[in-house]
């Protein structure tokens, strides 16, 4: 499965005084099996972009092809689109509403009209996939769980629909460092296991550098950079001008270089930087 976006533009409230161009002529391609990251300053249009990818928002102009199907065409089957492209919203735990975890996770698959057996099967799989103990949580009210657990339940609710592309909008926003890491490990695990396209919006450059294969940089509705993390994070000055930062590993390497340590190359993870520093000091 691949996603191709061509000249996508979205204008909120066109013709009104509060008219707002949230996406401005965006084009990119995400190849099969890619883990893509989307970064950008607050209000740059990241959430608007991902809501187009599963057909929740219709573009003002432009096209989105998933494989060879145009999901923006007027005759497109929006149910089919939402079934194959799963979107986890920012703060997804706020959309939980059922009495038990099991029922809430079953909401999506039930809407797809699956058989009862298939639904239970998928619900159990999804709950296990997000790292929860199925037998322990299935009968519990989602509102009794901790923040991190609740978010897992919400993510399970999307995974249970069996999407072939998983999109997460800031999946770790507002979590403590430990829950943050656990959610990321979970996302990484799901990506590894399914081999599907995964798209993650994030403000954390370390996570983006460590996890993704492709990075899209948004700025005021425009796509300003598109490349591998190494390519994108080699433009430190431009990123800083956009109000973004480099991953800590690259930041430290740059400081050390300025202090006179001969480091060459680009650094995405702390391990890489540590190795390079050790090598440089041994010489």
């Amino acid at each position, binding site marked *: 499965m691949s996603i191709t976006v061509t000249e996508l533009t979205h204008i909120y409230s066109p013709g009104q005084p509060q008219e707002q161009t949230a996406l401005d002529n965006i084009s990119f391609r995400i190849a099969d099996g890619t883990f893509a990251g989307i970064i950008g300053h607050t209000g740059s249009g990241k959430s608007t972009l991902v809501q187009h990818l599963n057909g*929740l928002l219709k573009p003002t102009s432009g096209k989105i092809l998933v494989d060879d199907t145009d999901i923006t065409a007027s005759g497109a089957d929006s149910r089919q689109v939402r*079934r194959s492209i799963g979107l986890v919203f920012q703060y997804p735990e706020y959309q939980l509403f059922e009495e038990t975890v099991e029922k809430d996770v079953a909401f999506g698959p039930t809407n797809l009209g699956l058989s009862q057996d298939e639904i239970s099967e998928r619900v159990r799989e999804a709950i296990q996939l997000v790292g929860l103990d199925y037998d322990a949580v299935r009968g519990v009210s989602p509102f009794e769980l901790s923040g991190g657990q609740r978010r897992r339940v919400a993510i399970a609710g999307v995974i249970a629909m069996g999407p072939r592309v998983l999109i997460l909008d800031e999946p770790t926003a507002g979590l403590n460092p430990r829950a943050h890491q656990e959610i990321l490990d979970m996302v990484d695990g799901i990506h590894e296991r399914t081999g599907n396209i995964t798209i993650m919006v994030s403000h954390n450059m370390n996570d983006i550098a460590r996890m993704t294969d492709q990075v899209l940089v948004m700025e005021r509705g425009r796509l300003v950079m598109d490349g591998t993390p190494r390519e994108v994070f080699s433009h430190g000055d431009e990123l800083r001008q956009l109000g973004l930062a480099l991953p800590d590993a690259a930041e430290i390497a740059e400081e050390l270089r300025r202090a006179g340590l001969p480091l060459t190359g680009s650094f995405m993870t702390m391990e890489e930087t540590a190795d390079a520093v050790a090598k440089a000091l041994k010489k």
Partner: protein
Amino acid sequence: MIRDITLGQYYQTESVIHRLDPRFKIISTLLYIVALFFIDDFIGFAIAWLGLETVICLSKVPRRFILKGLRPVFLIIAFTLIINIFMTQGQVLVEIWRFHITKEGLQMAAFMGIRLVLLIIGSSLLTLTTRPISLTDGIESLLSPFKRFGLPAHELAMMMTIALRFIPTLLEETDKIMKAQQARGADFESGSLLRRAKALVPILVPLFISAFRIAQDLAMAMEARCYGSGLPRTRMHEIRFTRTDAGAAVVFVIFLAVIVLERLLW
């Protein structure tokens, strides 16, 4: 989408009407509405319409905004017209099957229609030219004499202010929750009435939870700033009755007097 709905529909511009004391605007709107029901012939309505026209011109609010206020109540007006045309006894003009159209009915319907249109335009002018916050300040000030009879004027006004402030927030929240449930395959647009009513549960439950969360946060924030009602408080923007207001009041009283005289003399 849902965000495009304007509530409280204040139209920001600089005009004499915008600057008037909100208390004066509230009272004169109420009196205008009472006057509309006092009028009983076309000349009276012509005078009332002329008065409204003057205010519209002075307020600089574009006419399409004013007419927009009429759209949602169009059905009610149509319904009133039909009821009045067919249900009034009197001299029969036309007879269709069991229904009669009478001369009195037509006149009644015309009066009622004009009355409703003027009433809605008049009251939407109040909200178009007055910020919601000034409006609640005005209401608080008007209600404050009743404090001595135990009416919690300040609390009422505070509740109104908070409600107005959070309408856009809750609309945004609804939009987000709807999208999130749609992403999980929820369908709000098709199916029987019962199905559609059921489809609201996944929106309403999270929405109520959000509303309570927002209320709790707000209460905490107010308490952290030592908000307490019951104490005499000063305000940042005092409402003042200026000379312009006095002038406007004189003109308005003359306007009312003309309407009363017209009714008595014709």
